[in-house]
C-alpha cells in the first residue's frame, strides 16, 4: 500500500521536475485520447509539438505565431500568478482582457483618422486602465463586503462578453463595413496599429510587454518587500498579518495588476493580430492563462516557458485540425488534462511516497 508522508521541506527537485513530467504524461494520455478519436497518436503528437517549429513546410508560418500566441498568455499569466501566490483568485482575466481591448480600441476609433504619435500610447494607457477598472469591481467588493472574488470576477466575464457583443454590433461597428458586425480594422489605421516589430518574427509590442512583465515580476517576487508579502500571504495569511501586511491593500494590488496586464494583452491583441473588435476576437486566452500560470509554477521564468509551450499546443492544434481533421475541442481537453496532471503530481513536491504498512487515514 502506498502512503504519503509529508516532507520536512518542499523538494526543489520535484518543483522543477513535475511540470516536465506532467507534460510527458499528458502526451501519453493525449495520445490515448487521439487514438480513441481514430487518429494516429504518434502523428498527432508530432504535429502538435514538433511540426510547428521544425517542419519545413509549416515552420515559416508557424514560428512567428509562437510569439503571437505566447505574448498575451504570458502577459495575463504573470498578472494572475501574483494573485494566485497570495491566495487571491482572479479567474475573470478573460473579462478584463475584453474590456481592456474595448477601451483601447475605443480610443483609436474615437480618434480615427487622426495620425499622431500619441494615438498608440494613449490606447495602451486606456487598455491597461480598462482592464484595471474591470478588475477593481471584484477587488472593491472583496475589500468592502468580503464578497468572494472568484465568483464575481468570473461572472463579470459573461457581462464583458455581452458588452463586447453590444459594441461589435452597435457603437463600434464599422460605418463603412456594409452592415457586417465588427469594428474598423485597426491594422489599416497606421497610428493605432500594433505592428510586427521585426519582420516574420511575430514580435509585436504585446510580446515586448510580456517580456518586461516577466522581468518585473521576477524582481518583485524575489527582491522586493511587496513580493515577499505576496508570497507570505499565500502561504500563511495569519503570519502575514502578524508581519504587518495589509490584506486589503494586497487584494487591490493583485487584482489591479492582473486586470491591467490582462487589459493590455487585450489591447495589443485587438490592435495587432486580431485587428478589429468582433464578437469573438477573444480566444479564451484569459482562461488558458490560468493553465499557463500553474504550469509555470507561478514562477515568472516558468510562466515564460509555459506560455511558449501552451502557444505551441494552440498552433499545433490548428495544424492537427488541418492535417488530421482533429476537432478543435480536442486541444482544449488536452490542455485541461495537462493541468490535471500538473496538479496531481504536485503532491510529490511536499510529500514522499512510501511503500509500507497501511495507516488508518
Amino acid at each position, binding site marked *: 500500500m502506498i502512503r504519503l508522508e509529508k516532507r520536512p521541506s518542499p523538494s526543489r527537485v520535484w518543483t522543477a521536475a513535475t511540470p516536465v513530467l506532467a507534460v510527458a504524461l499528458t502526451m501519453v494520455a493525449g495520445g490515448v485520447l487521439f487514438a480513441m478519436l481514430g487518429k494516429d497518436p504518434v502523428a498527432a503528437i508530432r504535429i502538435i509539438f514538433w511540426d510547428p517549429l521544425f517542419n519545413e513546410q509549416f515552420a515559416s508560418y508557424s514560428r512567428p505565431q509562437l510569439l503571437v500566441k505566447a505574448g498575451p498568455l504570458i502577459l495575463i499569466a504573470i498578472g494572475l500568478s501574483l494573485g494566485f501566490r497570495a491566495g487571491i483568485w482572479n479567474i475573470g482575466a478573460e473579462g478584463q482582457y475584453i474590456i481592456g481591448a474595448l477601451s483601447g480600441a475605443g480610443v483609436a476609433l474615437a480618434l480615427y483618422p487622426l495620425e499622431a504619435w500619441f494615438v498608440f500610447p494613449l490606447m495602451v494607457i486606456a487598455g491597461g486602465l480598462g482592464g484595471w477598472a474591470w478588475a477593481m469591481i471584484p477587488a472593491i*467588493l472583496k475589500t468592502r463586503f468580503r464578497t468572494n472574488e472568484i*465568483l464575481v470576477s468570473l461572472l*463579470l466575464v459573461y457581462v464583458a462578453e455581452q*458588452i463586447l457583443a453590444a459594441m461589435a454590433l452597435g457603437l463600434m461597428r464599422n460605418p463603412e463595413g456594409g452592415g457586417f458586425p465588427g469594428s474598423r480594422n485597426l491594422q489599416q489605421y497606421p497610428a493605432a496599429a500594433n505592428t510586427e516589430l521585426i519582420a516574420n518574427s511575430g514580435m509585436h509590442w504585446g510580446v515586448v510587454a510580456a517580456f518586461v512583465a516577466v522581468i518585473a515580476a521576477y524582481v518583485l517576487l524575489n527582491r522586493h518587500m511587496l513580493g515577499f508579502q505576496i508570497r507570505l500571504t499565500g502561504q500563511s495569511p495569519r503570519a502575514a498579518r502578524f508581519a504587518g501586511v495589509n490584506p486589503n491593500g494586497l487584494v487591490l494590488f493583485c487584482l489591479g495588476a492582473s486586470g491591467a496586464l490582462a487589459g493590455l494583452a487585450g489591447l495589443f491583441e485587438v490592435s495587432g493580430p486580431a485587428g478589429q473588435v468582433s464578437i469573438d476576437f477573444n480566444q479564451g486566452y484569459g482562461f488558458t492563462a490560468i493553465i499557463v500560470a500553474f504550469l509555470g509554477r507561478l514562477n515568472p521564468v516558468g510562466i515564460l516557458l509555459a506560455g511558449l509551450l501552451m502557444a505551441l499546443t494552440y498552433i499545433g492544434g490548428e495544424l492537427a485540425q488541418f492535417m488530421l481533421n482533429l476537432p478543435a475541442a480536442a486541444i482544449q*481537453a488536452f490542455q*485541461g488534462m495537462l493541468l490535471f496532471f500538473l496538479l496531481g503530481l504536485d503532491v510529490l513536491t511536499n510529500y514522499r511516497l512510501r511503500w509500507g504498512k497501511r495507516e488508518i487515514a
Partner: protein
Amino acid sequence: MDLSAIDPVILIASLMVASTPILLAATGELIVEKSGVLNLGVEGMMITGAICGFAASVQTGSPALGFLAAIIGGAALSMIFGLLTQVLMSNQVATGLALTLFGLGLSALIGQGYAGMKPPPTRPLDLGVLSDLPVIGKIVFSHDAMVYVSLALVALVWAFLRYTRAGLILRAVGESHEAAHALGYKVVRIRLMAIGFGGAMAGLGGAYLSLIRVPQWTEGMTAGAGWIALALVVFASWRPWRLLLGAYLFGGITVLQLNLQAAGVAVPAEFLSATPYLVTILVLVLMSADRSRAALHAPADLGKTFHASS
C-alpha cells in the same frame, strides 16, 4: 414595445423550468460544501452532463437513459476532482478550475456531430385534474417529471442534513476534519461520496438544459449556469430551502429578461442578457455584507486540505 404580451402565468410556469438546472447543480454543490470541499468545477460537470445526456438519449431515444448517462458522466468527472484533491491533496480552487476547463473541452469533443440535432421529447407529467386547475394547474402541475424530482431532491437533502446520522456526520466532517478524524470517521471517503453526489447532480442539471430547457446541444451552452449555482449556495448560506428561493429568483430574472427582449423593450438585448449575472453579483454582495449570520452556517473547514498526520 408591448408588455401586455407577457403572460404572468406562463412567466411563472417557465420560471420553474428555467431554475431547475441550477437548482439541481446547487443542491449537489451544497452537499459537497457541507462536507468541507469547495468544488469550482460545477460548470464543467454540468456541461459534461449536458452532452452525455444528450448523446445518450439521441442514441437510445430515451430521455430517461439520457438523464442516467448525465448522472454517470457528471459523477465520473467529479471523481477526477476527488482523486486530485482528496488523495493527492491538490489545491481545491485550482483543481476546480481545471475541471471546468477540461469539462468544456471534453464536452465539445464528445458533442462533435450532435449540433443541430433534436433530442427525443420529454412530455409533461399528466397529473389529471391537478393540471386542469385554473392558474395553479398551469403554474405548478403542468411540468415534466424532472421539475418535481428536483423539488423532491431539495426536500431529501434538507431532511438528510437535519434528521439523519449520516447527515450529521457529513456536517461534522465539514466543520472540523481533524476532530472527525480523531473520532474515527473516514474523512476522505465521506468527502469522496459527497463529491460524487455533487457531480451527479451537476450532470443532471446539465442534462435538463440540453434535453428539456433548450432543447438541443451547443458548445458552452451552460453559459455560466454552474457558476451561478455556486453563487446560489453562498446566497442560501448553506440551507437547502433558501436554495430553492434563490434558484426561483434567478430563474425569474432569466425568464423576465427573455420576455422583455421578446417584447422589444428599448434596452439593447445584450444588457438584458447580462442581468442574470449582474443580479447574481448583487445578491452575493448583499449576502457577504451580512457576515455574522452566514458565518454560522458556512462549514468551518470549507476548502481546507486534509491529511491524516497521526
